């Protein structure tokens, strides 16, 4: 298990350079975020507000910004597990080979076996990704991210374009895995119900330039998260108390 390390995210500004007639674009302004003790955070905001940009910055894929991101006291870069919108598996490697590749030399077959078991993919570990359904590919991507035992897990709408029952199944598997191996999570979604089902904390973000609007702790106990009516009740309460939320989703 990862030693619990806090993740500090502080982005003073992120500009996209001018291209053609479109001028310079300020994507993110003054965003500060701290994740503590394996916290599950859902980021909600209008589409195009820069949530993927934020995840890419945290992942170290985009270094063209002002600010800093570090893990723990040592100010080291956090180790990343990234679950993209598309699974991004290598089609020429089997499920197992895809997972082993990111583990490199420290590959431990016991760990991978355990992850495959929880995600119900043990029988598919030697299959090539093109033969998997989208839901299964997503599960492989989730395993890959957990396998590296990251400081922070980034998830960019990982259940989008799945039908409702499949999305629900994968979500429950993800929660089962996360309960067993807690990690800090930044989860981007448009779906308030999904966010309530998953998160410790909801963070609402504004349209570009993206900044912090408000945060809300989800008061539902982990054991109650499978209870649809509890989630629905809290969703109604939120929409009543903060009518602004509707304009953000």
């Amino acid at each position: 298990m990862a030693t619990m390390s806090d993740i500090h995210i502080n982005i003073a500004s992120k500009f996209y350079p001018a291209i053609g007639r479109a001028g310079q674009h300020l994507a993110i302004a003054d965003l500060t975020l701290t994740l503590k003790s394996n916290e599950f955070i859902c980021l909600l905001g209008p589409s195009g507000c820069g949530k993927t940009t934020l995840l890419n910055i945290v992942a170290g894929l985009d270094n063209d910004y002002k600010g800093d991101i570090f893990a723990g006291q040592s100010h080291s870069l956090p180790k990343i597990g990234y679950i993209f919108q598309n699974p991004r598996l290598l089609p020429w490697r089997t499920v197992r080979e895809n997972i082993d590749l990111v583990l490199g030399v420290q590959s431990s077959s016991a760990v991978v076996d355990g992850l495959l078991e929880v995600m119900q993919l043990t029988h598919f570990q030697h299959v090539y990704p093109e033969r998997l359904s989208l839901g299964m590919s997503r599960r492989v991507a989730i395993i890959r991210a957990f396998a590296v035992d990251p400081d922070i897990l980034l998830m960019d709408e990982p259940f989008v374009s799945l039908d409702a029952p499949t999305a629900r199944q994968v979500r429950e598997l993800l929660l089962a895995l996360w309960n067993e191996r807690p990690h800090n999570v930044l989860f981007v979604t448009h779906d308030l119900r999904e966010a309530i089902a998953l998160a410790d904390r909801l963070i609402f973000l504004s349209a570009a330039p993206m900044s912090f609007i408000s945060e809300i702790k989800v008061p539902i106990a982990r054991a109650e998260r499978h209870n649809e009516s509890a989630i629905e009740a809290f969703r109604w309460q939120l929409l009543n108390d903060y009518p602004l939320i509707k304009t953000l989703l």
Partner: protein
Amino acid sequence: MSLLVFIAIWQALAAYFASHTLPTPAIVATVFWQSCVTGELPFHLGATLLRLVVSFSIAMLLGCALGIVLGRNKRLDAFFDNWLVIFLNVPALVTIILCYVWFGLIESAAILAVVLNKLPNVIVTIREGTRALDQDLLEMAKCYNLSKHDTLVHVIWPQLHPFVMGATRSGLALIWKIILVVELLGRSNGMGYQLHLFFQLFDVASILAYTIAFVAVIQLIELMILKPLDKKALQWRR
């Protein structure tokens, strides 16, 4: 079946014209057999094949390396783009003659001439392949901290495979043709040298016999080496 029809047409035409410039399949087969028995054909074919292997390997290795570098580095690419266009368009004959004039009628000059003719093609093909690499997968490799070696071998190379095979096939065809000219102009063995000799003797039967050997070797390379490589690399496809 189509091969039999081809031979039948050939036989009919040869019988109709009854000229020594178009020998029948039987005569060509006899000549083929005789030159195999004397060891003449295997010797010259071997010399050509050796040149093929050496120059092909050099051109592919160098071409892949340079193609990947140019495909990944915009500034280098912009700088060398004109060079590539120039080398792509210099006639093969000019490169061959210049190599012989500058370095003498030696083996390494012959190999160099073949490599120089093939290299720009490989570079351009692999460069296009590198430009078309899937950025999503490269991002994945980056955020999961894959080593340079792993990224190259497991993420980049499989995507380049179709381009490498394309460069290999077109490259073999091109190199065959160029090697013969190289041998004809400045070597005292090999297929090109022999064909030149037969041309001066007007020995069409021998020319055809050598051509058959030639085609057979190409088919063998395709069947024994390239097809299995394709099959192995593409087994993950549905």
